[in-house]
């Protein structure tokens, strides 16, 4: 299994390392695979400070040794003095060098190349030359005019300039890597989570209990004050690990059977389905125009969308984030406030409970259905046959099961892919079916009613917007509806191995009282005086 540090490395940087491994010279491969592995480790771990300094010393020696206008090009690429023996040979007459700045000399000894200044000495080991050369190769490919800059800034200068230019080089590398590596902060957090998981027994994926324990154990770590931050990082980490595993398996082209031992096929498709929901949701915000849902309604479901990326593995965490996460935010706000009033009740207990959160989710589901019904009317008014597809999703709430199945059978018999191509003709047929089938007429009337009552932007003035906007919005509303239903059902099943069926309200009470104890204890430790 590859390390978590490999997460987020750009395809282009990985391709560069691959290209370096394949680079050829006159005598075969220019760099040993191990050399490039080491270089990629230095770069990906952002551990290039020492390497930059070493490179600047080497470049100083090369450009000052012969004062050739193409010294670097000749040394690293034309003459390829990048093996220990070639490196030693290139500097074998260095003690006779005429052009070196005063108070400095270079010479080869058993260690490698020694660069002597008045008060200090720097040694470049001959065995490091290949690594330094590959490093320069990578930098020259991406930092343009680097060779000119190095020659101009290091020719005829002293040791201070070498150190100064090493710092400049590090900044250039940092800027270049911004587009290719995750931020240092994200890398640090992933490493912290990885170290924490390695200490856990049994090892394995995060579950709700582990998320809480991770948050508790990270009490003194920057960035983990809030439970929601810990949860979000855990989700990012798990997704990162998953994608890393998939990339790794794809790269090593395991057979499907072998692959199935590591990640079951079901898991992959579920993961893909969840990521698609999240991705689609981000592309078309439902709270923009046309406005399908209010920002408050979106906020309510956001923790569930985040957790949906990991499917059923964290059924409780989204509820905890919604209820106790909100409580913690209020506590933090109160503790920061300069005029703390006595709001004991507000502090000692969360305003929301799992029961109220459940009721809000139920209301959201109703709002989703009503908006979908409005979309049916808009699409119908725009003479789009897609109104039937959207209608299908809300029909079960509008008519009884027998009517529903009869209507579906009717559509299946009358609408084929072939007939759907003649949209206009089919739409004329639809109007005729409405006259023939009162049920159908009833649901379209309900849809028009829902549209009339919908005062959100984009529904009174629906003719201003494109049909696709309503179609995409409807698709996302359906995704959200599925997601909310799933969030409720997994929440009920999270109450443990019980033989009897448990109602959602019972689940709310059981889970809430248990979680209230855990969070009250932890929040007391974290926000002393505020609770």
């Amino acid at each position, binding site marked *: 299994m590859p390390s978590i540090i490999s997460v987020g490395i750009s395809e282009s940087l990985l391709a560069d390392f691959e*290209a370096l491994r394949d680079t050829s010279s006159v005598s075969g491969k220019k760099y040993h695979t191990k050399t490039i592995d080491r270089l990629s480790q230095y770069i990906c771990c952002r551990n290039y400070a020492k390497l930059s300094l070493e490179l600047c010393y080497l470049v100083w020696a090369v450009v000052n040794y012969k004062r050739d206008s193409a010294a670097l090009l000749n040394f690293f690429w034309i003459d390829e003095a990048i093996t220990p023996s070639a490196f030693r040979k290139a500097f074998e007459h260095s003690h006779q060098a005429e052009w070196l700045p005063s108070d400095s000399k270079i010479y080869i000894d058993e260690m490698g190349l020694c660069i002597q200044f008045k008060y200090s000495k720097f040694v470049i080991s001959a065995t490091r030359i290949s690594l330094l050369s590959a490093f320069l190769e990578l930098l020259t490919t991406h930092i343009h005019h680097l060779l000119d800059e190095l020659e101009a800034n290091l020719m005829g200068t002293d040791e201070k300039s070498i150190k100064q230019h090493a710092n400049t080089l590090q900044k250039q590398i940092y800027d270049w890597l911004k587009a290719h590596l995750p931020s240092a902060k994200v890398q640090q957090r992933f490493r912290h989570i990885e170290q924490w998981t390695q200490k856990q027994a049994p090892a394995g994926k995060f579950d709700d209990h582990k998320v809480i324990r991770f948050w508790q154990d990270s009490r003194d770590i920057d960035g983990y004050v809030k439970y929601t931050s810990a949860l979000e990082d855990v989700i990012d980490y798990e997704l990162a690990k998953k994608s890393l595993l998939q990339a790794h398996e794809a790269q090593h082209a395991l057979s499907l059977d072998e692959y199935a031992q590591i990640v079951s096929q079901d898991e992959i*498709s579920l993961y893909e389905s969840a990521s698609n929901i999240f991705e689609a949701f981000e592309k078309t915000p439902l709270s923009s125009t046309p406005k399908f849902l209010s920002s408050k309604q979106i906020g309510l479901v956001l923790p569930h969308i985040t957790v949906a990326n990991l499917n059923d593995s964290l059924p409780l965490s989204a509820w905890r984030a919604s209820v106790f996460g909100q409580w913690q935010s209020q506590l933090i706000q109160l503790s920061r406030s300069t005029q703390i009033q006595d709001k004991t009740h507000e502090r000692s207990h969360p305003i929301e409970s799992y029961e109220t959160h459940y009721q809000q989710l139920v209301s959201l589901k109703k709002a989703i259905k009503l908006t979908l019904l409005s979309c049916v009317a808009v699409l119908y008014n725009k003479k789009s046959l897609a109104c039937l597809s959207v209608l299908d999703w809300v029909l079960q709430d509008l008519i009884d099961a027998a009517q529903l199945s009869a209507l579906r059978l009717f559509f299946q018999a009358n609408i084929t*892919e072939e007939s759907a191509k003649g949209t206009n003709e089919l739409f004329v047929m639809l109007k005729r079916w409405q006259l023939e089938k009162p049920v159908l007429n009833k649901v379209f009337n309900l849809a028009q009613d829902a549209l009339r009552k919908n005062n959100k932007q984009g529904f009174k003035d629906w003719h201003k917007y494109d049909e696709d906007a309503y179609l995409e919005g409807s698709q996302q509303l*359906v995704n959200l509806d599925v997601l909310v239903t799933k969030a409720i059902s997994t929440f009920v099943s999270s109450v443990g191995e019980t033989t009897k069926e448990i109602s959602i309200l019972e689940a709310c009470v059981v889970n809430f009282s248990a979680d209230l104890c855990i969070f009250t204890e932890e929040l007391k430790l974290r926000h002393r005086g505020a609770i």
Partner: protein
Amino acid sequence: MNQSITSAHEQLFAIAKATRKLSEQAHNEVTTSVNKQHKKPLLFNDIVKTACLPHLAASKANLVRINKSSIHMPQYLWVLNKISLSISDAQAAASSVVEALVRQTDKFELRVRDVEHDDSLASVNLLLKNASSTQTQVGCHLHMVLNNKCSVLSFMTLQDNRAELTLAKTSQEYGVLINDDTFIHLS
């Protein structure tokens, strides 16, 4: 649960998806083929090799990519300037004569003549002045740079410091070679 989600999705928007799928597919095919073409990045080492050993097949393929890249071309020209033994700059505009049939520098002399009995061909004669023994053995290359695009004429065999090539007058190389604005680098 997964199955119910999938079937719901399939049921929903089936008609709309069918029409969109085709255009997406076409777009994906184009993107994949473009990605495949340029999957391997060009490193600085490739650019140096392209400039130093332009007669190799890999270098010719790389030169096509360099000519299309605004990132690699400056690097290539930088290398060319460093490795060139001599450079013949763009020629001063010579009244109505736009074709430079003779180019001279301190290191080489280049003459382009019509081939006798065949108006469609031109003979390119290169004379190296003070050529080294290495050049005589490994040959030399004329890198022609016009409008930030480069093409190369390779003279792999030299006798008495002279080499000759025949070019079709319709060829791109001939057009570039006789253009006043062409920079010619000898390596």
